[in-house]
């Protein structure tokens, strides 16, 4: 994964729940990230559908508090990633969305400062390692809350899958020893 991401900001408000991120009717496409991506954020009232068609690969989603509340559906971060969004920045995240994003190796950042200041269309650059967001449009810079090392490690490894593979390998080696 690239440590520095650049893209345009797409902004959302508070308590955007998983039914707005990806309506349950699309759960039938659970195993098709691209198809899910086509319907990302479709349930947000006032969003006329086709949101994901406006996304350029690498764009950045910026949201208010409690982003991703509601269902446990892992297709929520998968749909966002499938739409071309490279990273989600929020004031705060609902816990299952948070877990799911980290587990699939999808970068998320918590920054109340950015969530408050960023306007739709702003050009952003995010340095994942430094935890810094630069806003070229507004000429501003925001700090992100630090995550525990284990979570950063999971994101860097590419998620929970490689971590489990490593654990299984160690267990097998132990069983043979």
């Amino acid at each position, binding site marked *: 994964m690239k440590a520095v991401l650049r893209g345009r900001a797409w902004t959302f408000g508070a308590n955007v729940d998983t039914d707005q991120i990806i309506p349950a009717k699309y759960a039938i496409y659970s195993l098709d990230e691209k198809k899910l991506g086509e319907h990302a954020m479709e349930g947000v009232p006032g969003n006329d559908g086709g949101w994901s068609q406006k996304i350029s690969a690498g764009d950045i989603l910026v949201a208010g508090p409690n982003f991703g509340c*509601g269902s446990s559906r892992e297709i929520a971060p998968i749909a966002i990633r499938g739409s071309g969004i490279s990273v989600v920045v929020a004031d705060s995240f609902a816990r299952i969305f948070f877990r799911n994003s980290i587990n699939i190796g999808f970068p998320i950042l918590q920054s109340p400062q950015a969530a408050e200041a960023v306007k739709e269309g702003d050009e952003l650059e995010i340095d994942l390692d430094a935890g810094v967001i630069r806003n070229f449009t507004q000429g501003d810079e925001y700090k992100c809350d630090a995550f525990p090392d284990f979570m950063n490690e999971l994101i860097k490894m590419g998620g929970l899958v490689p971590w489990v593979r490593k654990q299984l390998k160690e267990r097998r080696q132990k069983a043979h020893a």
Partner: protein
Amino acid sequence: MTMSEKILARASGRDAVRPGDLVLGKVDFAMGHDLTIPPAGKIMREQMGAQKVWDVDRMAVVQDHFQPAKDIASAGLGKMTREFAREMGVKWYFEVGQGGICHTVLPERGLVLPGELVVGADSHSCTYGALNNFATGIGSTDLACVMALGELWFRVPESLRFVYHNQLAEWVEAKDLILHVIGQIGVDGARSKAMEHTGEAIARIDMEGRLTMTNMAIEAGAKNGIIGFDKITREFLDGRAQRGYTPVASDPDAEYERTFEFDAAAVPITLAKPMSPDHTAPIDEVAGTRLDQVFIGSCTNSKIGDLRRAAAVLKGRHVAPWVRLIITPSSAQVAREAEREGLIGIFMDAGAGWTVATCGACLGGHMGVVGAGEVCLSTSNRNFPGRMGDPTAQVYLSNPVVAAASAVAGEIIHPKEVVGRELVAV
């Protein structure tokens, strides 16, 4: 330590844990369903390279969300779910017609027990905490990890304590109490934290009502909801528990991030208005709202006691013209008992539609999806835009007695205006 901390400490092999600690916990029971098993099974086998489930006796797979299959694609998901359970040899597999909604099935079969660490690939898995365990919802990759290793990473949550003094007033149920609390603290009021319920009112709420309260912990953003072990817990589990168990209690000096105190006697019948579970109002404020559909169902409020009370309202009465009432029992056992007690006949005489046990309309899946601009009163747990169907539908949440009475009136109404002074059991 709080009871949540004690469970996570034991499961991670530590003497003590503190909020914020990241621990690797051994899972005592895990659950997945027809929307989460297909991805989890694929991730576990194809990506993680694990060929079997860590402990087939400690795993349930339930066909409930889009089952009986609502279309060809969900038939495919049901098939993958079935084949996975079969190939893995999962002991607790619940087929259509034999299980029902996972969050009713697991408690009624005695599969989730005091002191245990329970995870389910469904956000309402927090329901089980009414049985004095630490239960939380996880994603599909999480579930794949649990199935492969029997372990998962957890951040130890801060605990919030909710103390309910006195008793609930007449007509006021556990559902009203938890809606009232969510209205006070908001849909992120307990975000990632433990909600521990205690006090005189809890001691008098039966296990069904307690399960309703912990079920909705997630609607306040909580990681888990939990209730202490008492006579009600023990009596519920007697003859039901599938394993031995060890209850946990919070220490007198346990640390809580915050304690909320409520006078349960002062809590009114409470509904959530569109389009958020924390958008609550006492019944007086929403009475008179015209309805197109009433749904009595879901893991929140469609157990046998809920259906008995709904039947007490509906007996000898009829659903209002141009209103539809859909009643979906939350499990096959609940349906069987409703049949035995004659409740289904009462519902049919009242003009209600009675369905197979499924999540169904609650998540806008099938058997009660609401259309554009329609107004629905539901006994389920969340009413975010689009949850039950069209994003412009207006969904209210209530307890089942209010729902039944409102179906008769065709508008939201205080049940006493329909049934008279008090509810007479059927």
